[in-house]
């Protein structure tokens, strides 16, 4: 069918993460995605340098056996880095936002549980830089990051079907 100049624009493709809202300029979504991606790459990189230290932070939650904490200490920082890269490069974008959102929600829940159990925890999210952050600041930081991810989830990777094909 021939398109006329007044034809409706193509419907956003939710599966590809097409824009659902056009009220926020696309360039700003890119900026938010780059900032969030950069934060997670940084968070992953500081933990990659010392995975044993991160394994100790995981162990402080007293939820997993030490051996499993070590494996997670090796794996999670790389996952954060790849998801951060996905946000910046717009490759596997929705997967990256989804994994990071799931990790943040999980992390917030276990932090609250650990605090309720009276455990002496340091989040270790940003290596030594976050070692002495108070519980309240942990939560503020976590909710800010979660808020950023939810915004990105609700928006989109600014990519079109044409670019993807």
């Amino acid at each position, binding site marked *: 069918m021939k398109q006329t100049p007044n034809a409706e624009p193509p419907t956003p493709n939710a*599966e*590809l993460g097409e824009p659902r809202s056009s009220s926020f300029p696309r360039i700003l979504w890119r900026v938010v995605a780059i900032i969030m991606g950069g934060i997670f790459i940084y968070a992953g990189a500081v933990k*990659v340098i010392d*995975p*044993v230290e991160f*394994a*100790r932070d995981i*162990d*402080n939650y*007293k939820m997993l056996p*030490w*051996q499993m904490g*070590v*494996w997670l200490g*090796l*794996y999670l920082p*790389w*996952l954060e*880095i*790849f*998801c951060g890269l*996905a946000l910046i490069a717009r490759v*596997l*974008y*929705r*997967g*990256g936002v*989804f*994994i990071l959102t799931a990790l943040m929600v999980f992390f917030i829940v276990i932090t609250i549980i650990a605090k309720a159990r009276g455990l*002496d925890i340091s989040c270790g999210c940003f290596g030594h830089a976050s070692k002495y952050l108070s519980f309240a600041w942990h939560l503020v930081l976590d909710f800010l990051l979660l808020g950023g991810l939810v915004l990105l989830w609700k928006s989109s990777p600014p990519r079109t079907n044409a670019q993807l094909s």
Partner: protein
Amino acid sequence: MKALLRQSVALLALALLPAAVQALYLRDKIPWQSRVAESDLVSVEVARSWGANALWVDARPVDEFERDHIPGAVSLGQDHWSELLSQFLEKQWSPEKKIVVYCSAESCNLAEDVARRLRDESKLPNEIRILKGGWEAWLAKK
């Protein structure tokens, strides 16, 4: 939904590769079996047998130390680290003595942190051990 799953699985799998390489690279440096190597721990009985050759370091917060502590122990909590460390180095420390660090119980991590800081940051040449079971174990065997 399928695309989302595919993307997520791809990212999860991608992260496995460098993690496995790093695990291989660091295999001899990672304490795979337990958080603290058995060789870094010392039991109450053995530490006691060292007598005057042991320097007891209390890693708990100052208020807990002031309530009660192992006789002769010095407070070296991380909340007043610089101040307490310089006092410790000036007054009690001696290079020949063994240092025994303890915190409240088996599950606490303060002793481990303090032992690590004394070893890595302060570069103390002493043999530094963590008291197995901490203050609770000491009380039980008093």
